[in-house]
Each structure stands twice: as structure tokens, then as C-alpha cells.
């Protein structure tokens, strides 16, 4: 045997492992340096686990499991646990930052100090810009390196004496371009060679500034302008003045059960929560009922020998299930449009009515149900067809001999026999529609809204879409509250799942 490939074979796994490990360690240090200790710790644990699994001979089976299970744990299980933990914090747009970052924000703030401002001009350099500051009294001029001026993140900018600049500086840009870039320019702190700090104080000048706050040993922040103190309050998640006034931005702190208390006892949240919960249950139950009824009826029809063209009918009736949901839901959104939707045009031509599908709460609910039954019945049809096929044909022969009609057949033979295996599937359909976010979000967005509640909540909102609105839409990114509601939904889904497993077991035991 050729020795070269065997050496390659023997050495490539450990070398590869070492390279991957080094890369992982490098990333961990990078993450740690960026201040994300938790993330760095998680990554370190995963790397260590990987090292153990892929080197120890006792963990051979886990080598196959590790990638899949690790990914599922990190990106599916962890977000759920994390959601629950966010539910116990005040994470929101007002309390967005972690404590160290919020403190840093205050320490970065400046105030205008004494001293003469310097004349400022902006000069284009390729696609970037240089800042030029001139001290007319002393006869000095300073120029910065080129900066992109693309974002408004705070940044320090060192300026050098203009004499050191090799290339000639272009003409200053016009004032309107300076105005257009004002937000970006305001984020700059120019630092002179002698250490003085300057910020933009006017369209044509940069003035000297000094840090506004100074951190004291006991954690308080001293306001150097007026000598007052800011005290971090870890109960409210804000820096507060001596009189208890909160200063933005706040930081994230644990608030215990406060979010849950708000949901269940605060009038402003309790009322919409209960109404939305009731509608969520009604919506899911009605959808499952109508979908299953229509699907079952069709399945029974297709089991009828006398009927022809069954294949064609079945294919066409299966179509709503095959078209991507987001497309058919949007199609319905357009067709149901109050003013120029085709459905209203037809209704007006036939009956002279123009129902306001999107602004009347009841009609909006009816529309949601119509669309959802349209989307959901083919699944029920296919399932029921499979179940009906499994019923022995001699049962029907016997009933035919006894002179039974189709209704008797259905209620005495078909329904009782398919109900048991169908129940767990109905429960899982219920659970699916309980969280049918896509439908509500794309069709109505939860609207029309309740008029008598203090938080934005819609008459067609399900619990999940309500959560989504609290976190990502109109009421200002209240992540903590949204996560608390999600946690409540978790508990409900867990309850439904338990029920489903029970019925699955009953169905399975019955078969044996």
C-alpha cells in the first residue's frame, strides 16, 4: 500500500480538529472582547462538548447526533427558554441596553465647555469627507483623516495640523450638503493634538466639549456641569436623580412577576387579553369544526363507488393546500377589499350590498374563518380519505342488507370508526390554528382595533399576533411584556399537547 495516502488519512482528522478548535477559540476570545460574556461562555461550552464527543471513543454514537441535536438545542430550544426568561425582565425600547452599555452612554455624553469655538468646513475626499477646523486667532488649522459619514454611531476623530497633510484639500462642500450630513457630523468628537475635545456646535463651527458625567467609586454618576448625582436604581432599571426622576436611557433589570401581574390584573391589559383569548379559542375551534366537516363530507363522497371523475375533483379540491399560504392569503386580502375587491363587486352586482369586510369586527371574523376553512379543508379531506379507506367494506354491505340509507351509514359506521384516530389530529389542528399567526398577520393584521382599550389590540387578533404587535409594532417594543404573554401561550400549548398525546395513546391502544 502506498504510504502517502495512509499518512494523510491518519493525520488529517486530528489536524482538522485542531484547526477547527483554534478557530473556535479565536471566535470565543473575539466575542468575549466585544463584551458578550454569556455568548462567549455558551460558545466555549459547545466547543468543549464537541471536542469531547469527537475524541472520546465512548461517545461514538453521539458523533452522529451532536451536530443535529446541538443546532436544535441552540436555535429552537434555547430561544424558547430565553423567551421565558425575557418575560421576567423589563426589556423594552426604553430599557434596551444592558447596564454597562447604558452607563457608557451617559459617560459618552458631553457638554459645551469654556473656550473659543473653531471654524469648521467639510471637504470631499473621493467618496469620503475630511473635517477641517481653523483657529483663526492662533493661526492654526487642523484636518482629519477621511471619514465615510454613513452612520450616526458616536466616534472619536483625531485631527492633525493641516501642514502635515500631503495632498491638497479640495474646496469645502456646500452648506446644504453639510446640513444633509448634520446627524452624522454631530456624532463626531474631534480631538486636537493637545487633547482638547470638540463637537459640532453650529453649521460652521466646532466648540470645545467635556464629558458630562464622571463615574464615582460608589457607582453614582457626577454631573460635572451642575454637580448633581445620578443614582442607578436596579428596581426600576433607570438612572435617577436625587428627587427620583428617571433619566433615559434605562437598562435591563429583572422585574420578577411584574409582567404577568400586568397581564392578569392590570385593567388595561387584562381586558383585551381575555377578549383575545376567547376569540383565539373560538377561531381555532370553528376552523377545525368547519374544516373537518367539509373535509369529511368530501372524503365520504369520494368513497362512493357510483361517483365518476373522482380523480379530477380530488386534484382540483386539493389545490388550496398546495399553493403557498402567504400567496393565497394575500390574494384573498385583495379579493375581499372593501372598495375595489372583486368579491364586493360581484356582491354589489347580484344583491346590491357592499359588506365592509375589513372594518366591521364581525365581518372581519367571518372573513378570517372563510379564508381559513378554504386553506385547511384539503388536509382534513386527505386524512379522512385515508381513514375511511381502512374501514372494512363488509360493514357497509351488512348495513345495505339491513336497508340503511347513507345518513345511517355515516352516523352509525363511518363517523364512530374514524373519530378515534381523527381526534389527535383534530387537536393538533386546533393547536396549529391557535397559533395561526401568518393568516391573521397577512389578512387583517388584527384590525379592526378595539376602540375601548388603552393598548392597541384588534378584534381579529389571536394571542400570537397580539404578542407580535406588542413586541414589534405599534406599542413600542415592549419585549418583556410580549415574552411574558408568549410564556402564557407556551403553557396553553403544553396543555393542548398533553391532551393530544393522551388521545394518540387511546387511538393506538384501540388499534391493538
Amino acid at each position, binding site marked *: 500500500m502506498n504510504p502517502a495516502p495512509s499518512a494523510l488519512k491518519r493525520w488529517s482528522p486530528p489536524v482538522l480538529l485542531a484547526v477547527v478548535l483554534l478557530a473556535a477559540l479565536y471566535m470565543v476570545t473575539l466575542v468575549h472582547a466585544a463584551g458578550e460574556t454569556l455568548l462567549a461562555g455558551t460558545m466555549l461550552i459547545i466547543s468543549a462538548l464537541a471536542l469531547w464527543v469527537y475524541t472520546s471513543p465512548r461517545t461514538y454514537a453521539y458523533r452522529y447526533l451532536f451536530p443535529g441535536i446541538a443546532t436544535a438545542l441552540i*436555535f429552537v430550544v434555547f*430561544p424558547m427558554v*430565553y423567551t421565558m426568561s425575557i418575560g421576567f425582565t423589563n426589556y423594552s425600547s426604553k430599557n434596551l441596553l444592558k447596564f454597562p452599555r447604558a452607563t457608557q452612554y451617559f459617560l459618552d455624553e458631553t457638554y459645551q465647555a469654556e473656550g473659543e469655538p473653531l471654524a469648521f468646513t467639510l471637504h470631499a475626499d473621493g467618496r469620503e469627507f475630511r473635517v477641517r477646523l481653523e483657529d483663526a486667532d492662533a493661526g492654526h488649522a487642523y484636518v482629519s483623516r477621511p471619514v465615510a459619514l454613513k452612520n450616526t454611531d458616536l466616534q472619536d476623530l483625531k485631527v492633525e495640523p493641516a501642514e502635515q497633510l500631503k495632498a491638497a484639500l479640495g474646496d469645502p462642500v456646500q452648506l446644504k450638503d453639510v446640513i444633509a450630513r448634520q446627524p452624522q457630523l454631530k456624532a463626531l468628537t474631534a480631538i486636537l493634538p493637545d487633547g482638547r475635545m470638540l463637537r459640532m456646535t453650529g453649521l460652521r463651527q466646532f466648540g470645545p466639549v467635556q464629558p458630562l458625567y464622571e463615574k464615582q467609586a460608589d457607582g453614582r454618576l457626577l454631573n460635572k456641569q451642575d454637580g448633581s448625582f445620578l443614582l442607578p436604581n436596579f428596581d426600576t432599571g433607570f438612572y435617577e436623580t436625587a428627587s427620583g426622576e428617571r433619566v433615559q436611557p434605562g437598562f435591563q433589570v429583572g422585574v420578577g412577576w411584574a409582567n404577568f401581574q400586568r397581564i392578569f390584573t392590570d385593567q388595561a391589559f387584562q381586558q383585551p387579553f381575555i377578549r383575545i383569548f376567547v376569540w383565539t379559542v373560538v377561531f381555532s375551534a370553528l376552523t377545525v369544526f368547519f374544516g373537518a366537516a367539509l373535509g369529511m363530507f368530501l372524503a365520504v363522497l369520494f368513497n362512493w363507488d357510483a361517483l365518476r371523475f373522482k380523480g379530477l375533483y380530488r386534484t*382540483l379540491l386539493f389545490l388550496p393546500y398546495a399553493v403557498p399560504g402567504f400567496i393565497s392569503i394575500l390574494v384573498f386580502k*385583495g*379579493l375581499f*377589499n372593501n372598495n375595489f375587491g372583486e368579491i364586493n363587486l360581484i356582491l354589489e352586482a347580484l344583491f346590491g350590498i357592499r359588506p365592509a369586510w375589513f372594518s366591521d369586527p364581525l365581518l372581519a371574523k367571518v372573513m378570517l374563518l372563510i379564508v381559513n376553512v378554504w386553506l385547511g379543508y384539503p388536509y382534513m379531506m386527505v386524512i379522512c380519505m385515508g381513514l375511511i379507506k381502512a374501514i372494512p367494506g363488509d360493514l357497509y354491505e351488512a348495513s345495505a342488507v339491513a336497508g340503511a340509507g*347513507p345518513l345511517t351509514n355515516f352516523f352509525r359506521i363511518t363517523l364512530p370508526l374514524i373519530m378515534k384516530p381523527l381526534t389527535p389530529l383534530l387537536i393538533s389542528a386546533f393547536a396549529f390554528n391557535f397559533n395561526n399567526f401568518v393568516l391573521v398577520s397577512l389578512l387583517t393584521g388584527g384590525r379592526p382595533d378595539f376602540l375601548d382599550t388603552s393598548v392597541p389590540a384588534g378584534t381579529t387578533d389571536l394571542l*400570537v399576533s397580539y404578542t407580535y404587535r406588542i413586541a414589534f409594532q405599534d406599542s413600542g417594543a415592549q419585549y418583556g411584556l410580549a415574552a411574558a404573554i408568549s410564556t402564557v401561550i407556551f403553557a396553553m400549548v403544553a396543555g393542548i399537547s398533553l391532551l393530544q398525546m393522551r388521545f394518540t395513546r387511546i387511538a393506538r391502544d384501540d388499534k391493538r
Partner: protein
Amino acid sequence: MAIVLDKSHRWRVLAAHAFLIGLILLVIFPFLMILSISLRPGNFAAGSLIPEHISLEHWKLALGISYTAPDGRVVRPEFPVLLWLWNSVKVAALTAVITLSLSTTAAYAFSRMKFRGKQASLAGLMLMQMFPSVLALVAIYAIFDRLGNVFPSVGIDSHASLLLAYSGGIALHVWTIKGYLDTIPIEIEEAAKVDGATPWQAFRLVLLPMAVPILMVVFLLAFIGAIIEYPVASILLHEEAKLTLAVGSKLFLYEQKYLWGDFAAAAILSGLPITVVFILAQKWMISGLTAGGLKG
């Protein structure tokens, strides 16, 4: 079944046909309508089901071609539909590849190996897929927001973040593949091992080629699942050029800017291929799953 038929039988058959035809008309009405709307000029014009005047303006816009209106105005495409389609296909294909490789290896271990915690992990996987990711949106957003502070390439508004968020959804696929692998006799691999194959070789060279049908099914399922996913994509992607089709299509139908005709063309353009793939996959899926479920 040879039984005596009474008179009402014929009427019942007729009634059943009438009902089915009526229902089918109702069910496919939206599809016919959307086809007609995509071919009629203007975004507001109402007309009969068969448009009197066929115009390809919406199709041109959907394909990214500018179009000149009769009054000489040049109408530019409002949204990059083809780019969105490409984004969707890219993310979905990569997701499917990752999901497939992760779930195949895991399913192999579950099907062929003995280890501690096997039953518990299998049950855990089943339990996991009962909780939809839409409940964890806040955490998913927070995680990728913070990841993005360190690695901007996997932060908010990146396709990599979407890929990572999707790749964990292997629970159902592991069960599907395991069910199929359980039906393949273990003796074949044992024969390979007798000939000196390592477990990895037995897996890759012997078992995998036999499992190709179920792998195709799982690939397509994962692909379609990623293409039609809306909630996670809607919080992770904001920039117009980065959107996937599921998030982008919504932009056509804002009350203030209602591009009904343009939407219709875009919907057919993007929905038709996905539908065809789904119907094909459905056929394989049923045969694949029943083949896998025989011994399950």
C-alpha cells in the same frame, strides 16, 4: 357491491356532481380571478373574468422590465420580485441542505445505535416540534441582534441569520428519516462491516444510497417549509433588497399604495413553481412515508 338501486339513486349522483362542481368553482375562483387581474391593464380597473383587453404590463413589471404606459410615462418596477424569489430560493435551498445533513446523521444514530437517553431524546424531539417558533420571536430577535453586535454577517438583516434560525427545525425530519431507515434490513450493513467497513463507511456508502427516496422527500419538505416561512423572516429581514418573497409580497397591498395588478402577476410568477414542486413532493411524500411507515 351489487345491490338493488332505488330511483332516488340517480338523483343523488347528479346532486353530488352539481355540489362538487359548484364547490370547485368556489374554490378555484380566486385562482382564475388572479390570473385575469394579472392580464388586465391598470391596478384598479374592474372588469369581467375574461378581460376584454389583454395587457402584459403587470407581467413585465413582475419580471423587472420597465413598461411604457399609453400616455408615454415610463413605469418602473416597484419591487424587485425576481430578487426576492432568488433570495427565497437561496435561503430555502441552503436550509434544506443543512437540515437534511443534520437530520440524516441524527436519524442514523437513532435507528442503528444504542446509547443512553435514546428514547428520551426521541420523545424530546417530538415535543419540540409542538411549540411553533412564532412563540419565541422575541428571543430570536434578541439573539440575532446581540450576535450581530459581534458578527455583523449573522446579525439582523442577513440571510445567514435566517439560515441559522431555520436550521434547528430538524425534529420532524429526524422522525421521518428514522422511520424509513428502520425498514431497511440491518443485515446489509452488517455484511459491509464484515468486509471491513467502518460504521461511517457503512452509513455513507451502503445505507445512504438506499435511503435516497426519503432524503429527496425530506429535502423538498424542508425547502418548501423554508420558502413559505413568514414570521421569523418578517422580524429578521427589513432591508428591501434582502427580503424573501413571503415577506416582500405583503408590500404590494398597502391601503395607501394598492398595486393589485402587479401583485397578481408576481403571485403567479412565484406561486406557480412552488405549487408544482409541492404537488410533486406530495406524491413522493405519501409513497415515501407509507414505505417508511410499514414497519414503523
